[in-house]
């Protein structure tokens, strides 16, 4: 169940209840029970997603082309969030930057999810020596500070948006592997798994039909948390100059560029920073709702 179902459920129960309770009470109840925070979180993510897909709808400015003479302007009706040192509209740069940050985050989480859950699934279901070896490798990964690990990977692979994503994804592998393994171990000991072996199931079939679907729920919730965290990490790498090269309007890079003008044009740092915070919080809130409905 996702949080969209929660909405559907809420609206449908109140719709059923309202004829009996009277219309006004039904409306009041809906207003009181409506999960505003969750709705806001979905709204933020949808908006950012739209920025990534159809950025030209939201702004008429070019993110790379500056207006001569219009440098470092404060936010106004003309430039919603002001302009940067080259006279480029900041709002346009944030909107056009969404695609870089989001795709980076998706790629990073994808790497972590696929590799990490794969390792966890194998370790948890095979057990024995394979489990020992895999989990000690994961321990090694966990023992290296995240930022150090991703910086080392980037230096090995070279700079760029995709490489930054891979570097961030590699640091997420350990967490996914740990979580997946614990879930698989729990499900593997369930009676219905033994019953499936007892009715003649081969290892692969039981893994695919019973163990995997029953262990995925908390991994899905964790994925949403990791998504927010990956945006943060990619922005960090961008800020440090290891991500997308300028003039790409990546969010971390925007913050880094704005830093030089913090005293005179604080909005250059604050606006992209707040956007990153909003997206990360939204992802966390949604993850929480997935975790709750799974219980």
């Amino acid at each position: 169940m996702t949080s969209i179902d929660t909405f559907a459920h809420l609206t449908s129960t109140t719709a059923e209840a309202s004829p009996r309770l009277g219309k006004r009470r039904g409306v009041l109840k809906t207003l009181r029970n409506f999960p505003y925070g969750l709705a806001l979180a979905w709204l933020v993510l949808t908006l950012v997603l739209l920025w990534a897909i159809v950025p030209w709808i939201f702004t008429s400015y070019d993110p790379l082309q500056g207006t001569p003479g219009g440098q470092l302007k404060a936010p106004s009706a003309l430039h919603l969030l002001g302009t940067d040192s080259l006279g480029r509209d900041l709002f346009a740069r944030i909107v056009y930057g969404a695609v870089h940050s989001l795709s980076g985050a998706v790629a990073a989480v994808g790497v972590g999810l696929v590799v990490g859950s794969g390792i966890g699934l194998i370790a948890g279901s095979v057990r024995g020596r394979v489990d020992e070896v895999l989990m000690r490798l994961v321990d090694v990964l966990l023992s290296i500070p995240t930022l150090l690990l991703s910086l080392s990977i980037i230096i090995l692979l070279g700079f760029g948006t995709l490489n930054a994503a891979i570097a961030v994804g590699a640091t997420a592998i350990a967490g996914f592997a740990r979580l997946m393994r614990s879930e698989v171990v729990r499900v593997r000991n369930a009676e219905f798994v033994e019953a499936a072996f007892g009715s003649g199931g081969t290892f692969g079939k039981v893994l695919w039909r019973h163990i995997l679907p029953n262990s995925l729920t908390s991994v899905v919730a964790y994925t949403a948390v990791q998504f927010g965290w990956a945006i943060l990490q990619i922005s960090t790498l961008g800020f440090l100059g290891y991500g997308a090269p300028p003039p790409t309007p990546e969010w971390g890079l925007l913050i880094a560029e704005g830093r030089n003008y913090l005293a005179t044009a604080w909005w250059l740092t604050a606006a992209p920073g707040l956007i990153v915070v909003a997206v990360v919080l939204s992802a966390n809130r949604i993850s929480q709702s997935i975790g709750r409905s799974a219980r």
Partner: protein
Amino acid sequence: MSISANPVLDVRDLDISYSHGDERSTVVHGVSFTVEPGEVVALVGESGSGKTSTAQAVIGLLAGNGRIERGSIHLNGEEISRWSARRLRSIRGAVVSLVPQDPGSSLNPVLTIGAQVREILEIHGRLDRREADRKVIELLTNVGLSEPELRARQYPHELSGGMKQRVLIAIAIALRPALIIADEPTSALDVTVQRRILDLIDDLRREYGTSVLLVTHDLGVAADRSDKIIVLQGGRIQEQGKTADVLASPQSAYTRKLLSDAPSLAAAKPRPPLKPGRPTALTVSNLVQDFTLPTGRNFRAVDGISFSVARGTTHAVVGESGSGKTTTIRSIAGFQKPTSGEIRIGDLDVASLRAEALRQFRRKVQLVYQNPWASLDPRQTVQAIVEEPMLNFDSLPRTEREARVRAIIERVGLPATVLSRLPHALSGGQRQRVAIARALVLEPEVVVLDEAVSALDVTVQAQILELLAELQRDLGLTYVFVSHDLAVVRQIADTVSVLHNGRQVDYGTVDEVFSSTSTAYTRELIEAIPGRKFPHAETSRQFIKAGPLS
């Protein structure tokens, strides 16, 4: 019981409701009863009958979403149903106390036994440390624990289930309350331990004159131990009265049904005697199973068990927890290799099977688990669950598979509408029927039933036993039936093995084992079956036909 004394507990027109989201549903409707001083009153009913809610309301421990809608609860003449949590706390333990259901999870694992018993003395009294310690030892002695000084220093995990329940009883009687509420105090315990615990509660009641409100699903226990019985169904009192009267001439149809379904109270229908000369379906000879403990030592769970089962008959494996019965059947089902000894099914030696041969062997032996809540995948529909074994073996066309699933679901007495449902939308009895259907869809030779009816209510249990007997008659199935409940065994089995600490102490036909020729241990098990006080309950059997589907 003196007539002049006021009742200890007087419950009038009690309604209890629970809220789920916006909805409130009432689960107890207008329940009224009294408990006189020194009396044992049994609240009997199936799961969902409201017996636990009623008991919780009396001690003011309803769950957070529960509420007393109407009615009054007078404890020692004081109306307590509207009291605040703080005020209720002052009477809990002192005036009314609780013996909880599961001794395993009711003690704090990080505190010693002594500290936990002392806690209740310290909460309500101003005893100095030495005085309290003396009182703790005295209490532990009173509840029949050996070496009380040692026990007081031990932690809960060092004690057996029966000993933990004794500790909980010691805590409950510590302040000599007027009323003890015992919520299924023995459901989690073996029969012999159950009897000793119930004896203990009886003795303490006689000694202290405490009243007991005994909540139980087991009519046998209620029949043996109570002065008064209250039968609840769906939150309403079906019948209440003196235990002897209710059992001798039950007034409500529901009570009669409960009586006829309770295996310990109903007289066993004699099974037709075995005709000799049936071929043997399963032979176990000298089975030994060792396990290596984490400490590196060997533990022998099963030691030299031998029996054989004729085709189309039922063999029961009986024993208390830790007797090795589950280990035995897991070896039979091929889930572990015996350390030594031989298991033969037809002409196959189970221990010699490897990988693919073992998988093919599973066609012949199927296992039905104790707990239908854990043995079905919560994410698959009934259709997918029952279909799965076929997918593992034959490449049947889809229509053929669906037809077989439909047929077997009908065979176990379920409507075809359940096929598209998920397990959580089914009742316990329905789930167990699905589990049986899954086991039968491959047409196995031997079906191993691991406590297959223990987790179910008595009426559902009776229906499942009926179904198993019917399937055996029609399909010629061979059952190995594992149970701790000798009363059930007497109903369904032809031959019995009694296990004790991994050894087989008795083996033979049901008649032989239940007769006086058996060993002392088996006789002790038989003696411990509750409900022996009332052997005439079968008079009511003819009133009731098999009920609706569970």
